[in-house]
């Protein structure tokens, strides 16, 4: 039992890791294609059919580039920071439930690496850790633009984590659980949390844009002001790691949003369709649904990036502290009152 448990989890971890890397890789391709279509262009179409091999060509290019370490940088931190960024981006996938349990004969295989009872807190912690890669990289480069980018990343993350945490508190009032598995199970069929927490979802989404350093909140790497911000001094695959980490972050936060607010692997009509598909393919179809939701969110991330210009720094802070935080507090209070009233009567 023990050894089969380990093997089962190991296979699951490898699959999830591979999937998140492949999705991150093809997100770069999708981003360029989406950007092109939104701007009446074609996008990459030279490498392979429809430019499908573009990510491979890009990866090869990144690997072949000369690797430069600035002479005055603090070498170890400079080397470590991209790895830290990509590591913290990857570990977020561990607690996300990718599907309901598969019943294979007498075995029950959960499609979740680990179901810790504070899953939401874990996600929150990992997201907060994500800024360390950016911060350390920016500081270690010994470049004023990088340092400015790092400072911006840190302050931006601190400002938006508060509103994000408050929106999660309102969600927890509704779900009564911090385990992601239980949160998803509680959204059976159509009872998605976004219907009970629309404002909370909006706040959470805006904050996750800020946490992943995506436009319109991409001030840490703002090209026009900071020449690339925290990764100004990075080259070769270390730069590639940073760019990759951004896309993995995008994938993870899309997965978290789909899980927390859009029912995860639940879909309307799952009680009739699930038994028809059987104990193996029923849960797997749920996983497909979850990935469809994730892809819609990733598309939305890109759609927003190519629509909205970057916020100015003071606007960013205004939005975070003066708009989102009061809104999130109001959301918590209203949710609490409504729940108290509903329980009373």
């Amino acid at each position, binding site marked *: 039992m023990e050894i089969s448990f380990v093997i089962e989890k190991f296979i699951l971890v490898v699959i999830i890791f591979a999937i998140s890397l492949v999705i991150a890789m093809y997100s770069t391709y999708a981003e360029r294609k989406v950007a092109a279509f939104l701007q*009446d262009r*074609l996008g990459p179409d030279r490498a392979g059919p429809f430019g499908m091999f573009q990510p491979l060509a890009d990866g090869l290019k990144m690997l072949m580039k000369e690797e430069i370490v600035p002479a005055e940088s603090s070498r170890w931190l400079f080397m470590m920071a991209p790895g830290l960024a990509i590591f913290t981006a990857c570990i977020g996938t561990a607690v996300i439930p990718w599907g309901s349990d598969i019943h294979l004969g007498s075995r029950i295989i959960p499609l979740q690496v680990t179901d810790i009872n504070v899953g939401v807190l874990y996600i929150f912690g990992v997201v907060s850790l994500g800024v360390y890669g950016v911060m350390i990289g920016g500081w270690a480069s010994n470049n004023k633009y990088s340092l400015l980018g790092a400072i911006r990343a840190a302050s931006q993350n601190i400002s938006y984590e508060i509103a994000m945490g408050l929106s999660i508190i309102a969600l927890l009032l509704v779900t009564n659980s911090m385990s992601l598995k239980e949160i998803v199970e509680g959204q059976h069929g159509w009872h998605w949390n976004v219907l009970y927490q629309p404002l909370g979802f909006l706040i959470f989404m805006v904050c996750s844009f800020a946490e992943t350093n995506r436009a319109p909140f991409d001030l840490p790497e703002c090209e026009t002001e900071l020449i690339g911000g925290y990764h100004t001094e990075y080259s070769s695959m270390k730069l590639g790691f940073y760019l990759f980490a951004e896309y993995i972050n995008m994938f993870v936060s899309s997965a978290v949003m789909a899980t927390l607010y859009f029912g995860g692997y639940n879909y309307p009509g799952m009680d009739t369709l699930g038994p028809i598909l059987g104990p193996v393919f029923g849960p797997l179809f749920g996983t497909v649904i979850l990935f469809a939701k994730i892809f819609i969110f990733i598309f939305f991330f890109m759609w927003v990036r190519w629509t909205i210009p970057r916020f100015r720094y003071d606007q960013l802070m205004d939005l975070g502290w003066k708009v989102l935080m009061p809104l999130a507090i109001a959301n918590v209070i209203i949710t609490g009152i409504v729940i108290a009233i509903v329980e009373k009567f």
Partner: protein
Amino acid sequence: MEPLTNKKKILVQKPLTFAERIYLPAILSGLGITMSHFFKKEATIRYPEVQREMSINWRGMHSLKRDEDGKERCTACGLCALSCPAEAITMIAAERKPEEKDLYREEKYASVYEINMLRCIFCGLCEEACPKEAIYLDGPIVPADYLRKDFIYGKDKLVEQPLVKK
């Protein structure tokens, strides 16, 4: 002081309305605009495979013409080189030998005819100057290259392909 014109306007910066301050209506309309472009036909022409039609007075790469019997029309008179404002054309004339009668139309021909495509400004004066209708700028765009010397086009690149005898 009295203003010189009555065009002066005092601009007042209006405070943002609530709808403007929460950004969302503007963001949603922006998203609508970009989405409408998602379904529009792209303006891109896939250049090397698909080429846009040139205008009728398009001037591209030069070609040295042959007459209806496949003989080169150029007699190396040098008027094109003389007319060229960029001094891009050089040529060396030679006398036709009796056995070369099928190759060249007249007794004198250009043994070397070179155009420096980096100097050429594609003005078309050589075409106008030519009394024998031997040179026309009716070719494609001159392709890019790596070395300057490769832009000096000789007769191998300029002379029209011979007619295929039926």
